[in-house]
């Protein structure tokens, strides 16, 4: 496998009327081609902002940290995304090398333009195809994602399709430019479970066929367990635990990850009580000092946790956790 994406020290602030808020704080991760990386977190954890930063798609009041480095390795050499400034330069990545699918497919399609016209438009922008060829490719992609009677659907509007079908069309559209990296922001959250299962299967198949990398954003640990190869758990803008999905979910080590799993109602154990994580996610205007989770942590150690930002400690090969409990263990031995 080849390294597709490297994100180093991604820090992102927003200038708002109420003051400067930190949305993403020193986040690093990498992704291989043909790999699905899950980005899990609750609302306000910064997972969507992180994903949008990969295309510099955040609003104009976003301020990127000085040490932020995002590099995307394409066939003709690496692209330093932070150095792209103009809309023209950014077009290499936006819709070209990187595509994105969103949570609510009804809101992502223009309501007054046919599905087909929207698919053709982006192919004309990003490739040198003729309009006729673009139409052929689009219909073929609609077929590929399991939409029956694709040439009819091509001429229809978004409101004429059901929710599951719209999300399939969205995926077809995102993949038709043959991106190297696909960002999927809660792509199954608005769907029913039986449809969600279909879309998850489809996405796994597509990774195999197209060999691209996927950053899969979700709040649902079950969906991550079924789709991702690696996972990064985010809380209040920081990654608190990351590693291969089997190890992170099978042996959750950060108190936050442990809490999330205990709070999840599970079908395989109906007797286990639901244990909520106490308290609420703090406002981004009042980010706690030290470890961001210290205000809700059940294993709070004292001044260390509230004063010092924990560093990543390996639990096993590739499985990293940012928590003082493990740093102490290391010092002890």
């Amino acid at each position, binding site marked *: 496998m080849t390294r597709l994406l490297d994100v180093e020290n991604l820090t992102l602030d927003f200038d708002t009327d109420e003051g400067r808020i930190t949305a993403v704080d020193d986040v690093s991760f990498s992704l291989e081609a043909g790999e699905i990386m899950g980005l899990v977190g*609750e*609302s306000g954890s910064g997972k969507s902002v992180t994903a949008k930063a990969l295309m510099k798609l955040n609003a104009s009041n976003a301020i990127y940290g000085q040490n932020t480095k995002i590099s995307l390795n394409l066939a003709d050499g690496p692209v330093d995304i932070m150095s792209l400034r103009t809309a023209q330069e950014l077009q290499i990545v936006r819709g070209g090398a990187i595509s994105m699918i969103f949570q609510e497919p009804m809101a992502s399609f223009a309501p007054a333009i046919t599905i087909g016209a929207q698919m053709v438009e982006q192919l004309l922008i990003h490739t040198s195809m003729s309009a006729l060829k673009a139409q052929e490719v689009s219909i073929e992609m609609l077929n590929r994602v399991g939409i029956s009677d694709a040439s009819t659907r091509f001429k229809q509007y978004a409101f004429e399709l*059901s*929710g*599951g*079908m719209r999300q399939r069309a969205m995926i077809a559209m995102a993949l038709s430019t043959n991106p190297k990296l696909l960002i999927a922001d809660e792509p199954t959250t608005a769907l*029913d*479970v*039986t*449809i*969600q*299962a*279909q879309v*998850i*299967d489809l996405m796994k198949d597509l990774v195999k066929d197209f060999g691209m990398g996927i950053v899969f954003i979700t*709040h*649902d*640990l*079950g*969906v991550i*367990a*079924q789709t991702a190869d690696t996972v990064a758990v985010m809380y209040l803008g920081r990654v608190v635990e990351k590693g291969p*999905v*089997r190890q992170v*979910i099978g042996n959750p080590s950060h108190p936050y990850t442990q*809490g*999330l*799993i205990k*709070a*999840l*109602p*599970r*079908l*395989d154990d*109906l007797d286990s*009580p*639901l*244990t*909520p*994580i106490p308290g*609420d*996610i703090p406002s981004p205007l009042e980010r706690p000092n030290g470890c961001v989770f210290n205000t809700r942590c059940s294993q709070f150690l004292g001044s260390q946790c509230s004063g010092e930002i924990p560093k990543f400690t390996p639990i096993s090969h590739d499985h990293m956790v940012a928590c003082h409990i493990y740093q102490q263990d290391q010092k002890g031995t």
Partner: protein
Amino acid sequence: MKRDTLISANNVSVHYPINGGKLLGPKPVVRAVENVTLNITKGSFFGLVGESGSGKTTLGRAMLKAAPITNGIVNFNDGEVNYSLSNMSSKELKDYRTRSQLIFQDPYAALSPRMTVRDIIAEPLEIMKLTSSREETDRRVREIAAKCRLNLEHLRRFPHAFSGGQRQRISIARALVSEPKFVVADESVAALDVSIQADVLNLLKEIQQEMGLTFLFISHDLSVVAHICDHVAVMYFGRLVETAPTRELFNNPCHPYTKALLSAIPSLDPDAKNLAQKLEGEIPSPTNPPPGCKFQTRCPHAIDICRRDEPQLESVGVEHNVACHRWQELM
């Protein structure tokens, strides 16, 4: 009607007229709920599951008389009063409103941003004239707020100052301040984060036991229902396809739709193999219902009889009913 039943539906249908059809012919309708029969026992936590468009919300509203009941009878009997919902005077309806309540899905949309939390919770008492003085209103607001883990400081603030979980607790306090007997919770935890969701679920269960409430808990999330409800009904396309005590339903699902729904829930175990067949296709359009069993268009086991005759609920075990022609063969 059994003696310990609080509210029951007998062959209840809710039809909505839609545009179209012939000029002089019968007006076409969407059958949002069709021939549903169920009994909710006093003090129980009754779950109603189904995907979008299955009619679960409409059925919940019909039981609150917030949706028109086209056919059938909904009967409410709490020991003090006995109402048939499709046939009540406006005085009785007003009284029924104090005995039944609804908790909504989205705590951001359900609370007026211009009222303080105290006023939001007090409003039902004032509108229904359940208290005789402001002191009494305040006392009841404080009592229910304490039960919902809101403190006095919170009562003076406006909803914008609260997080999603806190707002949902405010919604719950408002629904319960009139001391209803029957509460419909429509997707009441769906908008909340997992770490908060567990807290609200525990709170609902606690209050239900403390106040002896009867809940109809509507949800698309089977794992949530499994944890909180004692009895579950599964809906598909406006029909009940299976009802059973929770454990029985999860250990011994009989309808192919229930089985598919259970197997579609993503497991936390990455190696979990889904043995059951995945469903193809989607729920049919309500304006163009398929003949026979409404699930036959997606059912992997459909045969001729399924395409011809609509199955009726039949007994499978104690309180366990299923509407499927082939449940016995498929066991």
